[in-house]
């Protein structure tokens, strides 16, 4: 297998883009990545597009072909495909792109992620997102996605005694960092009190424990590590791309307080990158719901089970702490255009490792980890990136 590097990265602002369509968003991010990589569209040999549900959100399937067409490369006749793994679609597309380069089949690929979510009313968006769970045996009975996450949180709090106040520290930190990111959906700080007093979505989760519905797109250009310096002086190596799955429904799992797919993806990623949790300088953790971030931090080996909140309380998750957490603002504040999210996390890490992250720059960042999950931590994908 060849080593793989990122030579270009770009993304749109995340948020409610009333003036932009699915294709507008993905082309904007893709062209930024291509320009950043100092290549032209002619150099791209394959396109992998992460997208959860354009067919439901905007009635558009065949997203790979659409991306290639409106990126202006229809005449090049290159392969272009959509990759889907619910909220982990973006990282799944990156995993596919990684395999395409590592295998030697292609030399330059474009990996994009996109979701256009705000063309529908909220109750329909909620129903489409619920498709990441088991439609027949969870959703049919009335479970929404926040309801499932809430049941994880309830059980976790029952077993470990974590309080709502402690859980609220995670969105507070995400917003503190998001306030420094000009591309974030929400660029303002919030307080623990605001999280607790926000409207209840599914007890114990208030709306401030849940990521927003966002439009957005992100893209990266990949090539092999040995070719990367031909295009850029600051390539970023993908030291690990690891993907694991488990039971789609919560009720089929042995436990609600840990994600065996995150544990497995983390284990594989650390082994592949020859790294340990202590080697990681910053993390982008999937915080679609506060409880998912909490379990993710623990399952990736950054805290003992039941104790992730202590890192938050001690300030370790701040930009100057021992584990800078979601410097982009995370899904909570940067936003969660589901198919774009996994690629967007990696775009943030590329910016951080190139020392281009502006006010939210983590000093001396050389190794970053991105954790993107689909469903109720059903699919977990971990990427480790480092400067080369």
């Amino acid at each position, binding site marked *: 297998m060849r080593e793989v590097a990122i030579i270009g990265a770009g993304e749109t602002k995340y948020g409610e883009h009333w003036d932009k369509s699915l294709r507008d968003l993905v082309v904007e991010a893709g062209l930024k990545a291509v320009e950043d990589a100092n290549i032209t569209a002619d150099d791209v040999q394959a396109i992998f597009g992460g997208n959860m549900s354009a067919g439901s959100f905007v009635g558009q399937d065949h997203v790979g072909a659409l991306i290639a067409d409106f990126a202006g490369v229809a005449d090049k006749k290159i392969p272009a495909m959509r990759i889907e793994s619910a909220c982990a679609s973006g990282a799944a597309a990156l995993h596919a792109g990684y395999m395409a380069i590592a295998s030697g089949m292609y030399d330059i690929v474009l990996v994009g992620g996109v979701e256009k979510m705000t063309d529908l009313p909220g109750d329909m968006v909620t129903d489409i997102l619920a498709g990441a769970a088991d439609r027949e045996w969870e959703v*049919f*009975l009335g479970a929404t996605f926040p*309801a499932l996450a809430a*049941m994880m949180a309830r*059980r976790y709090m029952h077993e470990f005694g974590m309080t709502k106040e402690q859980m609220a520290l995670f969105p507070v930190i995400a917003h503190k960092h998001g306030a420094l990111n000009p591309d974030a959906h929400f660029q303002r700080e919030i307080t623990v009190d605001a999280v607790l007093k926000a409207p209840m979505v*599914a*007890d114990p989760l208030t709306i401030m424990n849940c990521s927003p519905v966002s439009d957005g797109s992100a893209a990266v250009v990949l090539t092999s590590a040995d070719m990367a310096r031909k295009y850029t002086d600051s390539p970023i190596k993908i030291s690990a791309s690891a993907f694991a799955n488990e039971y789609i*429904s919560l009720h*089929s799992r042995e436990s609600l307080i840990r994600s065996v797919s995150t544990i497995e993806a983390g284990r594989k990623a650390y082994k592949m990158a020859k790294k340990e949790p202590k080697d990681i300088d910053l993390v982008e953790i999937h915080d679609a719901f506060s409880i998912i971030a909490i379990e993710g931090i623990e399952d990736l080996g950054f805290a003992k089970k039941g104790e992730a909140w202590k890192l938050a309380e001690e300030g370790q998750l701040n930009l100057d702490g021992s584990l800078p957490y979601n410097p982009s603002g995370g899904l909570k504040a940067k936003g969660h255009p589901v198919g774009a999210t996994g690629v967007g996390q990696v775009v943030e890490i590329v910016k951080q490792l190139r020392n281009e992250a502006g006010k939210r720059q983590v000093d001396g960042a050389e190794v970053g980890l991105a954790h993107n999950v689909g469903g109720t931590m059903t699919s977990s994908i971990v990427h480790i990136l480092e400067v080369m």
Partner: protein
Amino acid sequence: MVVPRFWRERRYRYSLIGTRCPVCGTVYFPPRNVCPKCGRESVGKMEEFQLSGKGEVYSYTVVHQNVLGYKYQKPYVMAIVQTPEGPRITGQIVDIDPEEVHIGMPVRAVFRRIAEDGKAGIIQYGYKFVKDE
């Protein structure tokens, strides 16, 4: 949605019938054609298994969202119920003040209307849970 989508699941949803792997004895709900523990050895051998409908609350939440098809029920209690036979089951808990629900509370399954497909569509039935006195 057309009728077969719901009709094909009627026995399992109306009567809480799951499956049991004869190789290792594990009971599953919803039904499975392959036992995750025994793999190919179980294929073609999985047996239908009648659950008792008894259980206790393993986790729960009170849903305050506007959910398609469930708006008229809000707020409603969703739970994961641990059955004595082994499987956990996701379902609503009804006929109770949400404040009264707690982890460990004994429940039993009842046959109820679940949702409606618009004003003229199919009325869908299945299981919910009530407190088991």
